[in-house]
């Protein structure tokens, strides 16, 4: 009879898959040197590994592999209508990485990608060329960390530093970096500038414990914000997604009190608030992975292919948060 062996998962990044075309790329060398013990496997295209049929996203989350690749087309995408544009006209997003080291139960990436492995595109210079072209005659607002959490893997990729350096030079570009990470070294060693916006997603500690596996605690996120605010960075706070739970007002109300007890509202550039929403198709796929998730089994309304909370809950959540925030920040700083 067998009893449990306490730990069998191999650590994250035990294997690095590298596209043969970029074997000699400098960034690839830098990354692989950090994982000297990792098994390196040469591949033709990242899609051969990332897009395989019949992968188990949830199992792979226990031992995430790294895939180093070259992005060949579609560097920049139009901003999704499901995301706020914060008043900027030309809202775009990009992804020089796919997937995230965190494991949030509600994350749409589980429905979007067939694999939990992380793809890092190492040819950032090609992204920059494309943005140069797009910003010749207009200003651009670009989110660089929607389909990933770039800051959480900054020690591996140094992408945030490269984006920051590029953004500083391109005066037509404003970048938002959204994160739950507390890996803030890059913000400590760089002077702040207005066109690079660090944006933290905050959730109540109860929500973090229940649904945001492997993410830093609320306190840790607030400490990270406080630290970079001391260095002069103006921060965006994102209460997004708001999750409908029992005692929503108590749980979220307490979080907002904590946030403004810890953070000076003068250090906040603006705030975004959004209730949980997800594309119908992604939800269908995630259901197969997590059939008994209380977030995902909610009886959503469907509007233009997007699952949203029932109107009564949506309005209740938004109004509650709006009223609560009004006591702390100017209304024009809050985006819904």
């Amino acid at each position: 009879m067998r009893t449990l062996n306490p730990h069998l998962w191999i650590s994250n990044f035990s294997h690095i898959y590298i596209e043969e075309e970029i074997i000699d790329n400098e960034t690839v060398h830098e990354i692989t040197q950090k994982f000297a013990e990792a098994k390196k496997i040469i591949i033709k295209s990242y899609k051969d590994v990332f897009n395989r049929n019949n992968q188990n996203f949830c199992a792979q989350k226990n031992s995430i592999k790294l895939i180093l690749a070259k992005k060949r087309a579609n560097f920049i995408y139009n901003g999704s209508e499901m995301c706020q544009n914060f008043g900027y006209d030309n809202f775009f997003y990009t992804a020089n990485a796919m997937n995230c080291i965190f494991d949030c139960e509600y994350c749409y990436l589980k429905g979007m990608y067939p694999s939990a492995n992380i793809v890092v595109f190492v040819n950032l210079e090609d992204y920059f060329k494309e943005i140069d072209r797009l910003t010749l005659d207009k200003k651009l607002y670009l989110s660089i960390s929607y389909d990933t959490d770039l800051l959480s893997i900054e020690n591996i990729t140094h992408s945030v530093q490269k984006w920051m350096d590029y953004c500083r030079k391109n005066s037509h570009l404003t970048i938002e970096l959204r994160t739950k990470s507390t890996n803030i070294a890059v913000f400590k060693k760089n002077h702040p500038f207005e066109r690079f916006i660090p944006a933290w997603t905050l959730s109540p500690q109860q929500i973090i414990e229940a649904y945001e596996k492997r993410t830093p605690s609320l306190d840790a996120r607030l400490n990270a914000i406080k630290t970079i605010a001391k260095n002069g960075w103006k921060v965006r706070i994102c209460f997004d997604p708001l999750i409908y739970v029992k005692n929503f007002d108590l749980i979220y109300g307490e979080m907002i009190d904590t946030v403004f007890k810890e953070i000076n509202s003068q250090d906040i550039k603006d705030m975004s608030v959004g209730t949980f929403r997800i594309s119908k198709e992604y939800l269908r796929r995630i259901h197969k992975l997590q059939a008994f998730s209380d977030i995902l089994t909610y009886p959503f309304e469907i509007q233009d292919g997007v699952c949203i909370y029932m109107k009564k809950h949506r309005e209740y959540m938004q109004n509650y948060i709006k009223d609560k925030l009004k006591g702390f920040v100017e209304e024009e700083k809050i985006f819904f």
Partner: protein
Amino acid sequence: MDACYISTSSRTVASLIIQYYKLKKVMSEHKVEMFEGDFQVKITHKKIINQKIIMIATPKDIYNVPTCIGYLFAKFPPNNSSYFLNIDLLSSSHQNNCKMPVLCNKIYDEISSQNYYTDILYEHDFIEDTIYCSICDNKNYDVHKGIPGDLTTAGVFKAASYFLTLDKIFILRVSENDVFSALEWFSNVITYDAVMRNTSDEAIDDKIKNTVALFETIISNLKFSENMKQQIIKIFTYRALTDFPICQRIINEYENKKSMSKQEAKEYFENIKSTLMDF
């Protein structure tokens, strides 16, 4: 009972697997040689679960192996907790270089010129390597020195990955002396998975699953249309996860009820729905 599968084309390995898991021949099976046995996993002091181990002895030719693997899964259908191990002896050319067991992380199939990648998620002490799969057994060994050669791996992998997710498929090449240690590792993986499933969120899910299943039985007496059923089960599942007592109350209230007409079914549906949606 959950089933885990092992395939081998080696008589030597097969006899060692039979010995290790104390397998018995499946007497009803005449097309392919299959053996089965039980494997016990201790979840807690009080809870022990039985897993079935099924071994298939496949032929060595490239075309029949995938058919046999398909036949195995058709005969004993897998579920989400099924694992599959393909274990065979190291090719002689590889044994000349190194006799360490090899866990396959990549398969190159010469016929289709395609690469296949396995998922390596569990700790192990094996060497990891590519298996070069060629229709002509020895043709490319000189070109691909150090890479264990094989006739059937690509077919085995493709067939198994049709039925199971990639994290549950392992391909091992070992020398005769390492068969037991390889099986020991496979057993550890099965055990780990079984314990995790039975002690984590999935165990909680079972309580919900059973309640939802009971609710499904109850509403079958209420003669709901397919659309009504789907709607109500979805809401019921959400409420079972967030407010279990209300679901218990609904079950108690409706377990002995039956609809005699469409009108009555509609009334029951509206009543249950309004109770469930009141949150």
